């Protein structure tokens, strides 16, 4: 099947980005280099095309109460103009997808889901449809940009007009731009302050250009999926398909904070209540190599006392820390910061130590 392109393809091609297929989308993996782009986001700002992510709009008087019965987070308690992270689960409590819920108005909610799961998520939601909660998959009509990094706020204020109000952390507001309405959210997946902007596809190239033009003096550069991946690993944010799967619950992933078990009903709730009582067997944990090693990667074996106890769900050379890092679903007895482990890389084993999450926290 041929890859689909976002509204920003011409910009990626003009910038000589390296394009790869990602979940059926022709996406930039990098422009100048993953390390450069990663550093730009940590020290200045980066601009990402996230138009591949699924955008599903839920509207109508039942939008919030209906969605509350579908996802794990408390949508009813989510005030308009606010966003929250949550999950769509199967009946066993396993993760179908992780998503952001943006309550843009009392009767309007935007769901932003993983590109690789969009069709599945939409089909699942539609199978439970409610007459007063209209579902619209904005497939191909919507674009998304992420502006991330310590300079993001200043760049956005410059590009949109200084007098403009910017949303607080996890806030979302609607703004006019080029005769269209865009949604500006103070959310992201890099571990930095930043924004995600959702807008009609036709308006995306102009906004992309305007942000780069105003941001260049502050060090803004376009960033690809490669840097997005290394940034989220340092921040210990999970990637569905690597760190999350239908066989893993949010409690096992250490993401129970995104599950409102006090809600009366949502798929997987009963299984999670049981699991909370019985305790989890595994916990998704972060580790850091003790010494220089080849970059740890997903599926490399994790050993304790000579026995394999897990495999890495994600791993990379951390550009910020300058050493290998990994994430793994460890047996709970080992999921304690300070626990020594070994990672198997080709024929050798390299020492690593379990760390407190996140591995990178932005300076306060």
């Amino acid at each position, binding site marked *: 099947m041929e890859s689909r392109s976002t509204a920003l393809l011409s910009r990626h091609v003009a910038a000589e980005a390296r394009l790869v297929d990602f979940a059926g989308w022709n996406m930039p993996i990098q422009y100048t280099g*993953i390390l450069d782009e990663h550093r730009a986001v940590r020290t200045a700002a980066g601009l990402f095309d996230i138009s591949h992510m699924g955008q599903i709009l839920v509207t109508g008087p039942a939008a919030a109460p209906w969605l509350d019965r579908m996802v794990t987070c408390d949508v009813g308690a989510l005030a308009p103009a606010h966003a929250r992270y949550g999950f769509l689960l199967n009946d066993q409590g396993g993760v179908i997808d992780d998503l952001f819920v943006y309550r843009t108005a009392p009767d309007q909610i935007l769901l932003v889901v993983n590109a690789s799961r969009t069709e599945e998520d939409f089909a699942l939601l539609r199978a439970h449809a409610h007459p007063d909660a209209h579902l619209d998959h904005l497939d191909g009509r919507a674009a998304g940009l992420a502006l991330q990094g310590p300079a993001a706020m200043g760049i956005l204020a410059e590009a949109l007009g200084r007098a403009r109000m910017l949303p607080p952390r996890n806030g979302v507001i609607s703004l006019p731009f080029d005769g269209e309405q865009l949604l500006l959210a103070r959310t992201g997946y890099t571990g930095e302050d930043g924004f995600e902007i959702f807008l009609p596809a036709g308006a995306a190239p102009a906004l992309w250009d305007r942000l780069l033009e105003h941001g260049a003096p502050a060090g803004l550069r376009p960033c690809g999926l490669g840097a997005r991946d290394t940034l989220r690993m340092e921040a210990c944010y999970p990637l569905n398909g690597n760190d999350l799967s239908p066989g893993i619950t949010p409690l096992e992933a250490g993401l129970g904070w995104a599950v409102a078990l006090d809600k009366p009903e949502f798929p997987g709730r009963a299984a999670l209540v049981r699991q909370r009582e019985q305790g989890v067997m595994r916990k998704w944990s972060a580790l850091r190599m003790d010494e220089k*090693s*080849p970059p740890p990667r997903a599926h490399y074996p994790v050993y304790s006392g000579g026995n394999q106890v897990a495999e890495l769900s994600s791993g990379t*050379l951390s550009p910020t820390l300058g050493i290998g890092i990994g994430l793994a679903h460890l047996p709970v007895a080992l999921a304690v910061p300070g626990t020594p482990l070994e990672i198997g890389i080709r024929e050798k084993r390299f020492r690593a130590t379990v760390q407190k999450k996140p591995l990178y926290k932005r300076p306060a």
Partner: protein
Amino acid sequence: MNVPDDLRYRESHEWLRADGTVGITDHAQAELTDIVYVELPKPGRTVRAGDPVAVVESVKAASDIYAPVDGEVVEVNPAVEADPALLNTDPFGAGWLFKLRLTDPAAASALKDAAAYRAQIG
């Protein structure tokens, strides 16, 4: 793309100099992107053409480096282990990987010359 005329090339993007020095091409380093780790063979190891003898890793992937000809590893470049980015910045110079004593000094002629390698990478 820089393809020096005085080198021979393996299809898998290694170069071989007349003195037995081996490295990866400018094209290869550009394709691999930021190189962050290099694993070299032990001096004294006997290798056959086509054996995977070294590993070069970018942030995204690990790639095997193959011996272009039969021979014995007589020297490796410790500088690239300490600073793998040398493969990106100077692939034909400071970024060399290892040196072979060729079993058959005429074996290099079986590899591509610069013109043939240029044609390969287009």
